[in-house]
């Protein structure tokens, strides 16, 4: 027998092993749900799979009374739009500020400590202030995402810029580059794939803030729907929404990864294939 550390499963057993925990979880849920429903058939906490399926069908077919659109798509569209705007703005700020901080020592001296302090403020604690400043419209939801993830992206990108080999910056200068050209042609293009990495890392937090923001002021959106039905403990709506959000999160991440691979092949050589 080889050491445990040297044992690698084959292809088929890898797939089987990977599925196992999901199956166990589903079974576990089924038993728990059955037990609760046997005790109280009206129990809303752990609806049976059939209830969940019904509810999912309803969510994906029934039009909303406000706009006549299908609820789930309407919510998804609203949430994804906010997420895209929020993350897009954060990425833009992150890129500009991060590169400025990382590339230009004078700016770094001036603002890096400030950004470091800003990034420590828990956005949840300043929610009231944020709402006062940015109101409660669409803007505020986007702003909450921006406030929540930009400090991380900025600091990560600053770090990445500073990690670029010093040799490249010197080399660019020996090719006659001025500061602006160095930023434009040497630093920016090398940092964009790293920006995608940073965005991927911060997407989870972005979802968190989106859901929080939608719970405070919105009339549509995935977080809003969950908030709305939460007071009725309508788990038959909440659980499909959670699964759906998880799936969306997975897809977004996957798309970003693929985009980066396509657009920046030079960045991804040397990555392990698995």
């Amino acid at each position, binding site marked *: 027998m080889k050491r445990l550390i040297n044992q690698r499963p084959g292809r088929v057993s890898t797939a089987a092993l990977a599925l196992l925990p999901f199956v166990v979880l589903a079974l576990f849920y089924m038993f728990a749900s059955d037990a609760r429903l046997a005790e*109280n058939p*009206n129990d*809303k*906490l752990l609806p049976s799979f059939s209830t969940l399926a019904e509810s999912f069908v309803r969510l994906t077919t029934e039009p909303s*009374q*406000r706009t006549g659109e299908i609820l789930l798509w309407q919510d998804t569209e609203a949430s994804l739009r906010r997420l895209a705007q929020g993350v897009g703005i954060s990425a833009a700020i992150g890129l500009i500020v991060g590169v400025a901080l990382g590339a230009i020592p004078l700016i770094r001296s001036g603002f890096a400590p400030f950004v470091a302090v800003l990034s420590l403020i828990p956005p949840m604690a300043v929610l*009231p202030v944020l*709402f*006062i400043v940015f*109101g*409660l*419209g669409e803007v505020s939801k986007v702003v909450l995402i921006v406030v929540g993830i930009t400090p991380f992206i900025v600091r990560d990108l600053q770090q990445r810029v500073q990690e670029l080999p010093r040799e490249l910056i010197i080399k660019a200068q020996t090719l006659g580059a001025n500061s602006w050209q160095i930023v434009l042609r040497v630093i920016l293009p090398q940092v964009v794939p790293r920006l995608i990495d940073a965005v991927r890392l911060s997407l989870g937090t972005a979802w968190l803030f989106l859901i929080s923001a*939608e*719970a*405070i*002021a*919105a*009339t549509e959106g995935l977080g*809003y729907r969950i*908030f*709305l*039905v*939460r*007071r*009725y*403990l*309508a788990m038959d709506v909440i659980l499909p929404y959670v699964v759906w959000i998880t799936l969306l999160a997975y897809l977004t991440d996957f798309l970003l990864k693929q985009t980066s691979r396509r657009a920046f092949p030079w960045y991804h050589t040397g990555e392990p294939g698995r």
Partner: protein
Amino acid sequence: KDQFRIAWSIYVGWMPWDYAAESGIVKKWADKYGIEIEVVQINDYVESINQYTAGAFDGCVMTNMDALTIPAAGGVDSTALIIGDFSNGNDAVILRDKTELAEIAGQKVNLVELSVSHYLLARGLASVGLSERDVTVVNTSDADMVSAFASGGPTAVVTWNPLVSEILAMPNTAKVFDSSQIPGEIIDLMVVNTETLEANPALGKALVGAWYETLSIMSKDDEAGRAARTAMGKASGTDLAGYDAQLASTKMFFEPAEAVAFAKSEQLPLTMEEVASFSFDHGLLGEGAPNPGFIGVAFPGERYFGDDGNLKLRFDSAYMQMAADGAL
């Protein structure tokens, strides 16, 4: 100024605002007075009042207690333009495995601290000779009240509908005290900025007009009325039956005259005094407040409670009177 923003949040007595906005009634009345009114839904009730207090909205729905403790205490002179309803059983104290309010002594009580639930609890405790010291208050967000109770931990909660009916639907629960035992003390209002209202009476007229038109539609048991209530139910996450059940424990002032009478009643100043003293005891009037009457409240008929040199909350029946007189 001819553009105004009002905020509302989801609660049985305020759902008409959603219907009024969605069905175009608000627009109709605004057009009539040559102004624009934007009706904004805000899910976080406290946040909507804070926004109003900060000046982001010209009007906002809130309870009488919150009107006193947030905008008025924050120095924003506010007018209760519409008295929409009072809670008549909609807020309740619920115990698990117990049936008498007195048995609450020594328990942890989950509620939204410093809200009307807190007030209701204080009134309830007083009615059985207990005080807040006899229980432990645990601040619990309303959105999570139902799942919190379902978890089996909490044994006592104070909350409002629809959460009350959700919780009462669980086994071994009993309502031991509710707002019908203190009728007329928990009042749901449309509050507008006094300065704005004085400069723009059109805003008051349009809002009151739209409100009572909506109420007259929804109060009828005909096709249109049911459709309106169905829409309101859906928007609050339930259905017609669920919404009607909530309405049943709410004393809606469908007729403007009723609301006017309530505003002019002897009870209202007494209620506000009770509320002010509760708020003062809990520090809600601010650190600088020397006594419960620090913030003056005005009532129709030149009646006042508290410091009439620091009038910050005014119950004004003039606009509702116009509606009652058909003068809008």
